[in-house]
């Protein structure tokens, strides 16, 4: 039977009741389909469809004032805010919507007296549709504006990154651009984390950072120096408590800062740090077993290698042992030690101490060391006392930490609690003990070059370094120095590393014209340790009552006129 036959009246006459049933069935089906469509539509409209409903609801609310998720905060090790993001308001105006300009100016000046009438009149009397009147207004001014009910005003909300401590730790924190993307420092290194709203806790200690900065700043001013760097870090786990680079800047005004101030001297700048490198030379000498502890080196005459003459700043007229080479800071002695252990041994240790490669600190501003690797005797000799090797002060701090930490490699970190167990042993515990004992003598012995660094009770040890600056045109400048100190305290069980560098200090009347590390840097070390040790929980010790004498070796250091006794 064909379906069209149902509508044929002639056929229907033959079996009307049968057709009626079929017609009824079709109508019922149509009604069911109709109701199903209506039911489906009812359910689909009634159900929760985010794309249709919620987004519109959310969009309406989101657009009102409050911005999207804020960039994460940066905290110091004691959870003090170093960087945060706040919502600020900017005041815009559409002059076309203003009905009475004079009245509007009066109302605006009541809230913003700093805006001059002429300026406002000029701004509002224009054909433009969008004018920015003020880039930032305070929450109080915002409320006053709402209460004033001025037509044509548009208040926009935007996020602003702020650094409440201004200059403090500016080189570490870095900055963000106008769109809130990290462009320097920790802000850049952890940009994706911070953008996702995560907070970061640094190992930096606000108070210690301030003290380091202040003392360094004062000394730079006193000696009319160009700048400097200061670092305090944990000698055992590498957590950095302060990194100062001067001149610095107010991170809130990053875009208007001179490039010179933005340069991080502590982690990016590479310098020949002079005799501070002698500590490494002594460590290589002891650890390589190529030199006997009792070997002595004649330093009575200048050393001539090729066309170069190596001199001592404080000449001695007799042969001296390794501790005396370090305490008297003898270039000749150091060169002769290096000659004995040779270039390949020297480079092997420099590499393992991390002095030939970039550090893995958590900021992008890191310097790559420059070392004269020609394996010539002269280069080996000059590197032994810090010439021909340019490293960052942070490299020096890191190497010092490794040496005093029983020879176990210390990797500096800016993140609190980032404890990477490092088992790389660079030098033996025995060598470490010898170097620690010598470092203490450099400060405590009457012939030591860092006598002015002695802070009673804190058992400071270290090594000074004074190096002539490299001329941009080549060669060394006789007039400009880089002075540095690297050390640790307390030397019987070193807990903290302190490294200071000052760029180009000038001789002063009160320093009798001296501009060496002993005069310029050592006094800061004393002041700095005296102030930060109580904060760091390092108690002063009496040398007589502490375990000091049992922990360190007691080398005898001879003075200037002891040549005949050898």
């Amino acid at each position: 039977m064909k379906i069209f036959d149902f509508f044929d009246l002639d056929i229907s006459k033959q079996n009307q009741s049968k057709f009626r049933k079929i017609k009824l069935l079709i109508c019922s089906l149509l009604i069911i389909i109709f109701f199903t469509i209506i039911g489906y539509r009812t359910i689909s409209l009634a159900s929760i469809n985010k794309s249709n409903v919620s987004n519109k609801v959310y969009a309406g609310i989101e657009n009102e004032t409050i911005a999207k998720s804020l960039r994460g905060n940066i905290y110091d090790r004691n959870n003090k805010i170093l960087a945060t993001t706040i919502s600020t308001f900017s005041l815009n105006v559409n002059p076309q919507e203003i009905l009475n300009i004079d009245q509007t100016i009066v109302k605006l000046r009541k809230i913003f007296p700093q805006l001059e009438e002429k300026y406002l009149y000029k701004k509002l009397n224009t054909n433009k549709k969008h004018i920015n009147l003020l880039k930032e207004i305070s929450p109080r001014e915002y409320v006053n504006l709402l209460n004033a009910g001025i037509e044509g005003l548009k208040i926009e909300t935007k996020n602003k990154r702020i650094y409440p401590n201004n200059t403090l730790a500016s080189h570490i924190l870095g900055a963000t651009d106008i769109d809130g993307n990290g462009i320097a420092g920790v802000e850049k290194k952890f940009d994706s984390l911070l953008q996702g709203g995560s907070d970061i806790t640094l190992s930096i200690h606000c108070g210690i950072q301030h003290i380091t900065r202040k003392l360094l700043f004062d000394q730079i001013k006193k000696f009319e120096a160009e700048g400097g760097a200061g670092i305090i870090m944990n000698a055992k786990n590498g957590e950095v408590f302060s990194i100062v680079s001067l001149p610095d800047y107010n991170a809130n005004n990053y875009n208007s800062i001179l490039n010179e101030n933005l340069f991080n001297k502590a982690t990016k700048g590479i310098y020949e740090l002079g005799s501070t490198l002698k500590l490494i030379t002594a460590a290589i000498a002891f650890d390589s077993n190529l030199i006997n502890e009792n070997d002595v080196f004649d330093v009575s005459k200048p050393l001539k290698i090729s066309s170069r003459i190596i001199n001592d700043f404080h000449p001695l007229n007799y042969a001296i042992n390794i501790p005396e080479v370090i305490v008297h800071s003898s270039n000749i002695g150091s060169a002769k030690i290096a000659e004995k252990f040779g270039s390949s041994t020297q480079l092997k240790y420099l590499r393992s101490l991390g002095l030939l490669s970039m550090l893995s600190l958590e900021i992008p501003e890191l310097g790559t060391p420059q070392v004269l690797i020609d394996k010539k005797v002269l280069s080996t000799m000059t590197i032994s006392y810090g010439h021909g090797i340019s490293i960052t002060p942070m490299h020096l701090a890191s190497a010092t930490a490794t040496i005093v930490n029983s020879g176990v490699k210390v990797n500096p970190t800016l993140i609190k609690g980032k404890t990477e167990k490092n088992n790389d042993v660079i030098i033996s515990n025995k060598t470490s003990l010898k170097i620690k004992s010598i470092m203490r003598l450099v400060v405590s012995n009457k012939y030591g070059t860092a006598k002015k660094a002695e802070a009673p009770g804190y058992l400071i040890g270290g090594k000074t370094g004074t190096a002539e600056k490299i001329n941009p045109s080549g060669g060394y400048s006789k007039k400009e120095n880089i002075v540095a100190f690297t050390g640790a305290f307390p030397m019987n069980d070193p807990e903290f590393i302190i490294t200071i560098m000052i760029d180009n200090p000038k001789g002063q009347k009160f320093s009798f014209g001296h501009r060496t590390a002993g005069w310029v840097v050592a006094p800061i070390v004393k002041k700095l340790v005296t102030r930060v040790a109580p904060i760091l929980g390092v108690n002063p010790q009496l040398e007589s009552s502490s375990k000091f004498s049992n922990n360190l070796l007691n080398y005898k250091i001879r003075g200037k006129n002891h040549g005949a006794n050898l």
Partner: protein
Amino acid sequence: MIRYPSSLIFFVILFAGVSLYQIKHFITKKEIELAQIEKNIKSAQSNINILKAELSYLKRPDRIEKIALDKLGLREILPTDIWNLNDLVNATNILSNGENK
């Protein structure tokens, strides 16, 4: 004539439709409330951030140092201001031995 099952289905569909509309309306209302609460949370977080930043600004080490030195007349701690208990006992013993002699 409308049969009983058909009318039942009709009322069930009508009831379901009305109920779903009510639920939708209720959910939309709740979503608005939720969005409002989230907005308030963000606003509160923003205000907290402002307050924290202000507190941090007021607690700047240079400001605290200035107040401590200028207003409170405090001075920097010297090693002699801090005593280890063992050293103190030793010193007391030395002193008392000296007095006995």
